[in-house]
C-alpha cells in the first residue's frame, strides 16, 4: 500500500467514498419515497373504503339500491386506479361489480396496497349488510420505481461527471508536484542545474515549491563552501602524502642503510641476495659473493680510538662502493669491519678483478691520518665464492663458503684474495 502513489490513493478514496454516499443516499431516499407512497396509498385506499362503506351501508339500509349503483359508479369514475370493485350482500350475493380489465388478475401487491376490503355494517342496527372489495392498480408505484431508477441513473451520471472533473483537477494539481519532483531528482548541486520557475501559487504546493527553492539556494551555497574546503583538504592531503612518502622513503633507506658507512646493511643484503638468487635460479645465471674484512681493525681502534676506526670504516666503504661499476652489483656492511659484495651474472674471475681493483684503490688512496699522526696502511682480506643457483645449493651456503674463504685468507696472512671452490 505504501508503494501506491498518494494521488492514486486520494482519487480511489474519493471515488469510493462518493459512490458509497451517493448509493446510500439514493437507496435510503428511494426506499423512503416508496414507503411514503405505500403508506399514502394505503391511507388513501382506507380513506376511500371508509368513506364508501357508511354511505353504501346507509343506502342499503334505506333500500336505495339505485342510489348505491349510482354512487359506486361515481366512485369508480373518480378513482382511476380502481380496477375492481365488488359489493356483496350479507349472503355473499353480488350486488354490484366493476371490473376495469377483463383479464385482470387479482393478486396481492407490494405492501398490500392493491387489495382493500371492508365489512358493511348498519351503524344503527349493528347488522351485517355485506362486504365491499376494492382492487387498485399499482401503476403509480411502478411509475415511482421507474422515476426512481431514472433519477438514480441521472444522479450517478452527474456524479461520474463531477468525479471526472475532480480527477482532472487532482491530476493537474499533482502535475506541478511531479514536475517539481523530477526537477529536484535531476538537480546536481555541482552543476547547479535546477531551473525552477517562480511559483505564484499560495497553496501547499506553493509552500513546498518555496521551501525547495530556499533549500536549493542553501545547498548551492553550502556546496561552494564544501568545494573550497575539499580543495584545501586535498592540497593538505597531497602535501602530507608527499611528506609521508619522503619520510617513508627515508625510513626505508634507513632501514636498509648502515648509518655509519651509508652503504646497505646486512638486512638489505639478505633480502637482496634472496631475490637475485631466485632470479638467477630461473635464468641459470652465476652469482658471486665477495666477503672482505679490514685487517687488524681492532688494533686501529685500540690505538687510535673508535672515531678513527669509524673513519676507516667509512673510507673503506666509500672505496668499495666506488669500485663497483655494474648496476646489478652492490656492497653492504655485513657486521663490524666485515663487508660483503654481491655480484649478479658474474663468475669468480669477475669477482677476483673487482677485489683486485678494490685493493688497488685502497693502496692508491691517501694515507689515513689521526690528529696529524699517520695511520699505518689499511689492507683487506677477501673471500670469494660463486655458484649457479639451483635446488641443490642455497644463498646461505654461498655466504658460508665466502666466509670460509675469508677465514682462510686471514690464516694465510691477510691482504690476500682466497676463492672457495
Amino acid at each position, binding site marked *: 500500500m505504501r508503494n501506491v502513489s498518494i494521488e492514486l490513493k486520494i482519487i480511489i478514496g474519493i471515488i469510493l467514498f462518493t459512490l458509497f454516499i451517493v448509493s446510500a443516499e439514493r437507496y435510503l431516499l428511494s426506499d423512503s419515497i416508496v414507503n411514503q407512497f405505500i403508506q399514502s396509498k394505503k391511507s388513501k385506499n382506507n380513506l376511500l373504503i371508509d368513506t364508501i362503506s*357508511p*354511505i353504501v351501508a*346507509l*343506502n342499503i*339500509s*334505506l*333500500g*336505495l339500491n*339505485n*342510489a348505491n*349503483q*349510482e*354512487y359506486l359508479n361515481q366512485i369508480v369514475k373518480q378513482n382511476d386506479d380502481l380496477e375492481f370493485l365488488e359489493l356483496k350482500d350479507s349472503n355473499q350475493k353480488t350486488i354490484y361489480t366493476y371490473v376495469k380489465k377483463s383479464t385482470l388478475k387479482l393478486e396481492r401487491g407490494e405492501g398490500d396496497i392493491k387489495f382493500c376490503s371492508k365489512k358493511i355494517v348498519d351503524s*344503527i*342496527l349493528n347488522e351485517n349488510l355485506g362486504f365491499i372489495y376494492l382492487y387498485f392498480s399499482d401503476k403509480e408505484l411502478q411509475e415511482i420505481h421507474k422515476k426512481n431508477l431514472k433519477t438514480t441513473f441521472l444522479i450517478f451520471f452527474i456524479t461520474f461527471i463531477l468525479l471526472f472533473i475532480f480527477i482532472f483537477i487532482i491530476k493537474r494539481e499533482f502535475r506541478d508536484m511531479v514536475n517539481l519532483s523530477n526537477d529536484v531528482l535531476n538537480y546536481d548541486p555541482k552543476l547547479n542545474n535546477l531551473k525552477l520557475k517562480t511559483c505564484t501559487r499560495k497553496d501547499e504546493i506553493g509552500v513546498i515549491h518555496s521551501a525547495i527553492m530556499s533549500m536549493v539556494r542553501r545547498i548551492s551555497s553550502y556546496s561552494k563552501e564544501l568545494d573550497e574546503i575539499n580543495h584545501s583538504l586535498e592540497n593538505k592531503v597531497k602535501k602530507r602524502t608527499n611528506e609521508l612518502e619522503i619520510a617513508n622513503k627515508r625510513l626505508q633507506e634507513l632501514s636498509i642503510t648502515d648509518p655509519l658507512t651509508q652503504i646497505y646493511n646486512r638486512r638489505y643484503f639478505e633480502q637482496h641476495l634472496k631475490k637475485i638468487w631466485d632470479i638467477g635460479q630461473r635464468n641459470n645465471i652465476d652469482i658471486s659473493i665477495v666477503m672482505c674484512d679490514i685487517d687488524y681493525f681492532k688494533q686501529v681502534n685500540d690505538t687510535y680510538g673508535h672515531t678513527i676506526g669509524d673513519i676507516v670504516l667509512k673510507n673503506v666503504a666509500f672505496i668499495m662502493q666506488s669500485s663497483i661499476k655494474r648496476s646489478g652489483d652492490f656492497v653492504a656492511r655485513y657486521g663490524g669491519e666485515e663487508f660483503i659484495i654481491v655480484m649478479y651474472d658474474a663468475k669468480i674471475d669477475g669477482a677476483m678483478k673487482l677485489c683486485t681493483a678494490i685493493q688497488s684503490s685502497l693502496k692508491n688512496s691517501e694515507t689515513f691520518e689521526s690528529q696529524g699522526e699517520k695511520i699505518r696502511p689499511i689492507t683487506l682480506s677477501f673471500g670469494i665464492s660463486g655458484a649457479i643457483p639451483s635446488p641443490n645449493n642455497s644463498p646461505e651456503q654461498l655466504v658460508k663458503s665466502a666466509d670460509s674463504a675469508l677465514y682462510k685468507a686471514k690464516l694465510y696472512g691477510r691482504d690476500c684474495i682466497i676463492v672457495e671452490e
Partner: protein
Amino acid sequence: MVKFKQNFIRLFLSIVLMLNVSALHALSYDDDILNIYSKILPRFIIMSSIKEKIKDNVEICILYDDIDALVALSLVDKVKSNYPKGIKKHKINLLTTTYSNITKCENAQLVFMFNSNEKNINNAVVFSNKQSTLTMSYDAALLENGVEISLFIGRKVLPYINMGAIINNKIELDNLLLRISKIYTGKDN
C-alpha cells in the same frame, strides 16, 4: 279492542275504496316507495337532532286523508316489518290519524304526510314546526309547503331535503344523511 277496530276500519275502507272511483287516487302510492319511506322514517329521527326528543319510544305520526287510510296502515305494517325490534333499543310507536286530528301528533318526533289539500298540509306543517317535529311527505311537491323531507324520484331514488325548512326549524341532520340526499332549494329545483 284497538286492533279489532283497526282491522274493521281496514276492511271497511277496502270495500269503500273498491267501490269508490275516487279510490283510484290511492293507487298512485307506489309500494316500493312506501317501503323506502318505511325504512327512512325512524332513521331520520335517529340521525337528526330530533333524537334528543325521544323519551322512551320513537313516536311517528302518519297523517292521511280518509281516502289514504289503508295506505297509511300499509306503511305502518312496513315499518313494523322492517324494524320488528325497534331502533337503537327504542320501540317504534306509529300513530295514524287524519289531518283533522293532527293534535294527536303533539308527542311525535316525526310527522309523515300523505297527500291532502293544501290547507291541511299547511296546517300540519305549521303544527309540526310549533312542536319542532320533523316533517316528511310522500309527495316531494309538498316540500314547497314547508315539509322538510321527502323522496326524490328520478333515475334513482334519493332522500329529498328541504334545507331551508330544516334550518328554520333548527334541526340538525347527520352528515351521512346529507351526503346521500338531494337538497331541495326551491320551487324551480
